[in-house]
């Protein structure tokens, strides 16, 4: 029973924490020993490593292609994930199929890893639909554009998993800017109070449009969680193995009754906020350059090279796969059909609404009158 005293001595707030920033591969591709997290990726086979490399390459290719489609007028807008591939792939590939993700708009690599077709990623940005996929097909909610709102949804979903007695975990993806929205702390509070199996996965890409993270937070954002009774960890977000390791560890803890966890993946938004943005107004090029040197793909490639894992054959196959995905993506995007005019009235309600039906009928008459 809950007491009036707010001390839950069962929580090991150091559970996820490691020194400063968890890293498993250095920016130059060297393996960094990490006693706490090495075991979490020890099982990865060569094939799995190469598959992860392919993911990284493919999602970057999708991103570049989408930006091109936007420039060509085929998409209204696109939020590039350039630079954040490792944070997204590493975390998404740690999930079980039945785990459920709640996204913001930039997590297209997460969606890709969950099995969303690239064409479906851009339905929203092409304006043909308000969502690209059925959340229950891939256990992934369609992105929330209202900053932070999805963190509460993830918490509620996790609460439902608890009630159902399953060991499914839900994951809330959000950015550094989102940490300022009240919803995000409310989500932490609800999650902690109900010990809900939810992982708060913050991609700290240093920017919220033009605002540096220093405007949102005077301390690393992951420092907030322990005060709420949620263990947290700060990980090198450009290190795909480190991200996977901390995510697996946090998932495991949540799955086994340990309650919520918080991960801050420290990364950098190498592109503009969206294709409408002009980062030259606010980004210091020197700052950006220093992050370019930490590129998540180059780093993983160097590591795999060092391991002798990346054969010429493997490289060629990855490149071919990326080309193929890009081709299909483009064709799929251009082939998206426009919705029918009267579909504007569909799915507002799940049950009958005669007043809305009346509006639809009147608009249908109007359309007929204009023929």
């Amino acid at each position, binding site marked *: 029973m809950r007491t009036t005293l707010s001390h839950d001595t069962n929580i090991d707030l150091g559970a996820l924490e490691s020194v400063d920033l968890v890293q498993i591969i250095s920016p130059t591709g060297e393996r960094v020993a990490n006693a706490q997290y090495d075991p979490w990726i020890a099982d990865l086979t060569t094939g799995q490593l190469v598959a992860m490399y392919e993911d990284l390459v493919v999602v970057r290719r999708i991103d570049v292609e989408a930006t091109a489609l936007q420039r060509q007028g085929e998409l209204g807008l696109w939020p590039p994930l350039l630079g954040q591939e490792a944070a997204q792939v590493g975390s998404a590939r740690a999930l079980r199929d039945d785990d*459920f993700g709640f996204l913001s708009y930039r997590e297209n690599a997460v969606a890709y890893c969950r099995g969303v077709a690239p064409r479906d990623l851009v339905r929203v940005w092409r304006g043909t639909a308000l969502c690209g996929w059925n959340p229950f097909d891939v256990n992934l909610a369609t992105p929330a554009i209202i900053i932070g709102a999805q963190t509460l949804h993830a918490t509620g979903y996790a*609460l439902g998993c608890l009630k159902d007695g399953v060991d499914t975990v839900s994951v809330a993806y959000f950015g550094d800017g989102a940490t300022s929205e*009240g919803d995000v702390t409310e989500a932490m509070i609800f999650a902690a109070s109900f010990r809900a199996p939810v992982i708060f996965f913050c991609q700290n890409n240093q920017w919220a449009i033009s605002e540096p993270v220093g405007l949102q937070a005077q301390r690393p954002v992951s420092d907030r969680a322990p005060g709420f009774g949620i263990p947290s960890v700060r990980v090198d977000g450009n290190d795909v193995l480190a991200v996977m390791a901390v995510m697996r560890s946090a998932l495991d803890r949540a799955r086994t009754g340990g309650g919520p966890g918080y991960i801050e993946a420290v990364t950098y938004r190498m592109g503009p906020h969206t294709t409408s943005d002009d980062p030259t107004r606010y980004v210091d090029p020197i700052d950006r350059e220093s992050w370019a040197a930490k590129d998540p793909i180059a780093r993983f490639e160097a590591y795999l090279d060092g391991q002798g894992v990346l054969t010429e054959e493997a490289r060629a196959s990855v490149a071919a796969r990326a080309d193929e995905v890009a081709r299909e993506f483009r064709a799929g995007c251009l082939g998206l059909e426009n919705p029918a005019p009267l579909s504007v009235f569909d799915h507002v309600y799940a049950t009958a609404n005669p007043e809305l039906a009346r509006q639809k009928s009147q608009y249908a008459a109007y359309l007929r009158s204009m023929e």
Partner: protein
Amino acid sequence: MTELTLAKAIGSGLRRALADDGKVVLLGEDIGKLGGVFRVTDGLQAAFGASRVMDTPLAESGIIGTAVGLAFRGYRPVCEIQFDGFIYPAFDQIVAQVAKLHYRTGGAVRMPLTIRVPYGGGIGAVEHHSESPEAYFAHTAGLRVVTCSSPQDAHSMIREAIACDDPVLFFEPKRRYWTKGDVDENAATLPMTSARVARPGTDVTLVAYGPLVQTALDAAAAAAADGVSVEVIDLRSLSPIDFPTVEASVRRTGRLVITHEAAQSGGLGAEIAASITDRCFFFLEAAPARVTGFDTPYPAAKLEEHFLPDLDRILDAVDRVMGRENSLTGWVAS
């Protein structure tokens, strides 16, 4: 058939919903041990356990947002907002998420939430405890908004709201919580989407809902004594509004009075007046009249009798649409 207060009738409806469907969960502040500040959920946590009837941290956006996640997982959350004036911190989750998720996902994700809100004035309360925010939600596509005026409706409609696959704002007329009436758990009642002719009449159609239905019935009785036959319609559903029922009445009476506690400008009275004028223009003998709260914040308790529509103000409006002498006879805008 049992005699229950309106509050207890809702409680018994919640009890039935919890018993009938394991996916129903209640969330709110102080709804557990305390049974809610109005005791509507009294005994439910004891009966169904703390995982079905959950006290939550004190955060309304948190309550609704968490309920959205539960709905994603197949639950039917019933959220209590402690008082009308405390719903605004949850406004974003309600209008941008709850209302839109079904549309956003092309029907893939259902949001069968029920959001219970004790509302309205007349109880001498301090600020934020007497508001009537229904118009905000009625203007929001994707939400259903209903309210009740009798114990039977309270019981049947809360069960219907919970069973509904759409999100429902369920406004509870708090000053009528202690009204008693017979409740039949198995009654075949009017669907919650239908308006009800609460008293038939021939001269004037008087549309009311929630706490003012009783006031409207009292006014109709008084008018009858004065030779005017007033038909009272209890709206029940505020979004969508059952216009056919109102329309049929106005076609007969030719006169319309609408009353609600919410401020006049942009209140439901405006929509009803506009829609009925549109649909019954050539049947109207007079412009529809509105008897509502003023365009002021809800005032201090000692002033609420002035703010709130009452029997006399309704009768005055009845006189106005009847073309009889009334308070505005001879009034000129200054």
